């Protein structure tokens, strides 16, 4: 594959995943695990794409668009690291550590793109004031396409112009540097997990993190089995909570607790 073809295919993967995600209800096709798959598929090495995508998924676990604020831009990071892993022969660890600065750089560019969007504000205002319902859909689609197309062009240029330099640099890495990159990529997952913990943790549920950890480390259970354990435990606890809650409500109201048929069945 020539350099140009690679750059075109990789930027196509970028556009499909990033722009498509926002057109189809934020359906998560912009997440690294999917972006890696699509990029790998287009470049002819699907399994490398999926492996790197899955590793980046863990790191970027926390990088989600909540309230319009992003912390890093995982799409460009994934596309670039998968592309360079396939075409320049980067190892998985090298590709992952390459992804981090890329994601941060593109995230700061994102603010510029957001400002670019302001050029559509007057059109939007006019469409509303004239009650033009079709015009509204049109302007959304135009602003959608413009925003993501400009981003795609930048990705294209980075890959087209940068691939030779990246290949040369990565081929001459001494052993300690490669080792450093490997350790760094292994540690980075902790940051993604920390973001999730910050979102979910309470004093009551912190113990369940250890249970999930131990089930995996010592029993080597796959994710699906742990998820089933978790659901069963959550439902059991939830039913108890509900019972306590109903009791409390009944005591406050001075009424009696109505027994459901279900309770009789299990009694």
């Amino acid at each position: 594959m020539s350099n140009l073809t690679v750059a075109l295919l990789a930027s196509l993967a970028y556009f499909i995943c990033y722009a498509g995600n926002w057109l189809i209800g934020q359906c998560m096709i912009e997440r690294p695990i999917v972006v890696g798959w699509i990029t790998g598929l287009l470049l002819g090495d699907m399994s490398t794409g999926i492996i790197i995508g899955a590793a980046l998924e863990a790191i970027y676990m926390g990088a989600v668009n909540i309230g319009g604020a992003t912390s890093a831009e995982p799409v460009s990071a994934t596309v670039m690291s998968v592309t360079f892993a396939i075409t320049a022969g980067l190892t998985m660890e090298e590709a992952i550590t390459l992804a981090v600065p890329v994601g941060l750089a593109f995230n700061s560019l994102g603010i510029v793109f957001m400002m670019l969007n302001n050029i559509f504000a007057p059109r939007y205002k006019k469409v509303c004031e004239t009650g033009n319902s079709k015009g509204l859909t049109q302007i959304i689609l135009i602003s959608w396409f413009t925003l993501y197309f400009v981003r795609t062009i930048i990705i294209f240029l980075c890959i087209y112009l940068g691939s030779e330099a990246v290949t040369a640099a990565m081929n001459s890495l001494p052993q300690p540097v490669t080792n450093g990159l490997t350790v760094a990529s292994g540690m980075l997952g902790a940051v993604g997990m920390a973001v999730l913990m910050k979102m979910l943790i309470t004093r009551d549920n912190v113990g369940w993190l250890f249970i999930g950890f131990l089930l995996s480390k010592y029993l080597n259970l796959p994710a699906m089995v742990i998820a089933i354990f978790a659901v069963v435990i959550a439902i059991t606890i939830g039913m108890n909570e509900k019972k306590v809650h109903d009791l409390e409500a009944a005591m406050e109201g001075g009424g009696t607790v109505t027994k459901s048929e279900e309770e009789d069945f299990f009694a």
Partner: protein
Amino acid sequence: MSNSMLSFKKLSTEDRKMLNSIFWRSLMVFAGPCGAAYRQAPGFTNSIMPALVRYYPEKEKLAEAMVRHMTPYNITQNVGTFAMGLVASMEKENAENYGEYDPSAIVSIKTALMGPMSGIGDSIYWGIVRSIAAAVGIGAAAGGSILGPILFLLIYNIPGMLGRYYLTYLGYTMGESFISQAFKSGLIQILIKCAGIIGMMMVGYMVATTVTFNIALSIPMQDAEPVLIQTYLDQLLVGVLPLSLSFVCYYALKKNVNLNALIFIVMGIGFVLGFVGIC
């Protein structure tokens, strides 16, 4: 819930057609934000357009409604359709009692819903459904299996689309009191609490499988092979260092360390430790 299912049945064919159309159009609610001032307002108006066109056949009234909704909007996509259904029902009220109804209530209720609805949506969909989807997906992707991304997409999107669809109907039929009642009754809190248990177990699994590094140093022994420090650590608890690092990062975030800074710090420390051969 059974009450709301009953009221779904009472909906006319036109109602259903309108709500289904809102459901589909809501998919592109965040596609084209036209500038920072309006923050997803275009997408919201575009989503509820089937209701606006239906209730305001007159061009002036339609324009008035569209201008009314030029206010910032942001609710987690999969639950935001509740606000859309609710707004549709309020626009209907306004159209039927035009002049007597205060339309500014529509916008203020929509805006008031943003906080609590996003709170529920973010923790259920972002925190929990996505954690499970990612954990199962990452696990299945080992060795480059295509099952990884596919399971990830299915596990996230099936509950996502169901929520999006039913909440459109629920918003239209239940009205504004629904959310405050659900919060007051305490059921939402129980739901979030239980979902948190699932989320935390999956985070535990992911800490165990995705944070990986070892100490490479060893203690020299007289007349014997040197013993790796990692061997001792493993006897204490397998994976104790990755687990500790995750908690240190959590603590740093809790102390408001910037996320990007934290990523660079951890990457820097990891690189140095690997470079000098400690890890």
